[in-house]
């Protein structure tokens, strides 16, 4: 029994890791720009397909492909900011709808380039850690370590650097930030790069574990929304805590009951939070 619990815990930590990366990116984009990026799941998918292309097809080393996924999806983010969100800056609903259009374009591009079938990727890293009978593959360990590293890096960036500081100011009051001389164009561009690249790197790192399809973004975006609502919209730390909470609940319920029940429990969790504390566990402040 302890074996199963330990194993399930490791599985949950793994799920929490990549979901945190995705959810935090989404929150960052929402916080700084005020738009909900519906294409976020497809950015995750684009990261996974970067690995399919570079690692599976062109035989580049896995970590190079992951780095390329991070950079490529980050640039996709900048493209979105420049072509969609900037012209629609005063129109958050328009930004949301434009991001749905972008989602369809990314999906179509993936279908045209790689087909609709699942891409199977040979495991780049063999081996596993065994711990009291539970197993953690190096591949999953890599995802966990990368998530901890990247999220810690992001935290330090937001707290310690001038740009990070400006980003927090923008998330709290964009106009007031502009009145301090902070360039909204620069900050939103950087936020979009970081937010998108976190989704991209999550997709790239998990690609060998999930068998990418062009439609893999769907389930991810739904989960990310649940996490954001539970954590408190616009709250970065809340997103991480909620990702961990959600991953544990979902993984344990999946293991001991089944996946459908787990999805339902996840939604019930979200509804409970909405009823009891509509601003999320961390009580994000209302946006002006």
């Amino acid at each position, binding site marked *: 029994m302890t074996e199963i619990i330990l194993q399930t815990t490791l599985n949950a930590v793994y799920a929490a890791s990549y979901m945190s990366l995705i959810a935090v990116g989404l929150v960052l984009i929402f916080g700084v720009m005020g738009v909900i990026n519906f294409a976020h799941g497809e950015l995750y998918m684009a990261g996974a397909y970067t690995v399919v292309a570079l690692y599976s097809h062109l035989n580049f080393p896995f970590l190079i492909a992951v780095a390329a996924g991070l950079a490529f999806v980050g640039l996709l983010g900048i493209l979105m900011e420049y072509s969609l969100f900037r012209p629609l800056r005063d129109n958050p609903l328009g930004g949301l709808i434009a991001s749905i259009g972008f989602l369809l374009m990314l999906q179509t591009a993936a279908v045209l380039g790689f087909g609709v079938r699942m891409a199977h990727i040979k495991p780049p890293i063999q081996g596993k850690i065994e711990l009291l009978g539970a197993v953690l593959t190096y591949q999953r360990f890599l995802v966990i370590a990368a998530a901890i590293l990247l999220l810690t890096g992001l935290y330090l960036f937001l707290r310690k650097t001038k740009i990070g500081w400006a980003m927090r*100011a923008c998330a709290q009051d964009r106009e007031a930030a502009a009145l301090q001389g902070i360039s909204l164009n620069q900050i939103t561009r950087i936020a979009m790069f970081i937010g998108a690249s976190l989704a991209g790197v999550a997709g790239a790192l998990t690609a060998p574990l999930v068998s990418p399809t062009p439609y893999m973004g769907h389930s991810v975006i739904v989960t990310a929304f649940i996490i954001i609502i539970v954590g408190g919209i616009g709250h970065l730390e809340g997103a991480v805590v909620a990702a961990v909470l959600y991953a544990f609940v979902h993984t344990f319920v999946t293991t001991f009951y089944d996946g459908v029940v787990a999805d339902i429990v996840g939604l019930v969790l979200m509804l409970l939070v909405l009823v009891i504390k509509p601003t999320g566990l961390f009580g994000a402040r209302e946006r002006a």
Partner: protein
Amino acid sequence: MLLEIRDIQVHYNGVAALKRVSIEVPVDGIVTIIGANGAGKSTTLRAVSGLTAISSGEIWFDGARIDTLPPDKVVARGIAQVPEGRRIFPDLTVEENLRTGAYLRTDAAAVERDLDGIFVRFPRLKERRRQWAKTLSGGEQQMVAIGRALMAKPRLLLLDEPSMGLAPVVILEIARIIKEIVANGVPVVLVEQNAELALGLANYAYVLETGTVSLHGASRDLHENEHVKRAYLGV
């Protein structure tokens, strides 16, 4: 003139909020803009700071046209604004709020000195420097907002209703601070609904009524003007 607003118009969704407004601000002293709710006072300051686009006219600062610049570039030219409602960053500390004001400055040592200067001027803020800004009282928040603008080392300071929602004794303190700022060589544009306060502080005044300047002149003269007395001074 340091700042010249020439014949500007601003439209919100096709509706004119400013209709050919012209205002001049000299290199020293206080110019005030008074007017009722919705007259267009905030819109005027927002246009200067680049937050709201003008549909015609020109804005000149220190010999250069600034009406097409984005807000951060206007700050870079030397115009700081304390916006209506203070708009401090609630989830930054008092000290962090003040430091954002110096965002564009590169003279790190002078920034530290100016920060100390702000804490001398506002001892209440010094005690609370590590506190979240949202936990401050209204008067303290206004001081943070003014301190933050001063941290930019501006050449012109725009103040939008600094007295709003404050107790009379706090208003007196704000008035003292404004005088001090001007005495230190930074000219001020003061937008106020509290006409008594504004005319008492300012050298020159503009009266804005539904998007047009209806009157302007030395504050002293406007203070005695019958229309101003009736409409804004409540006598």
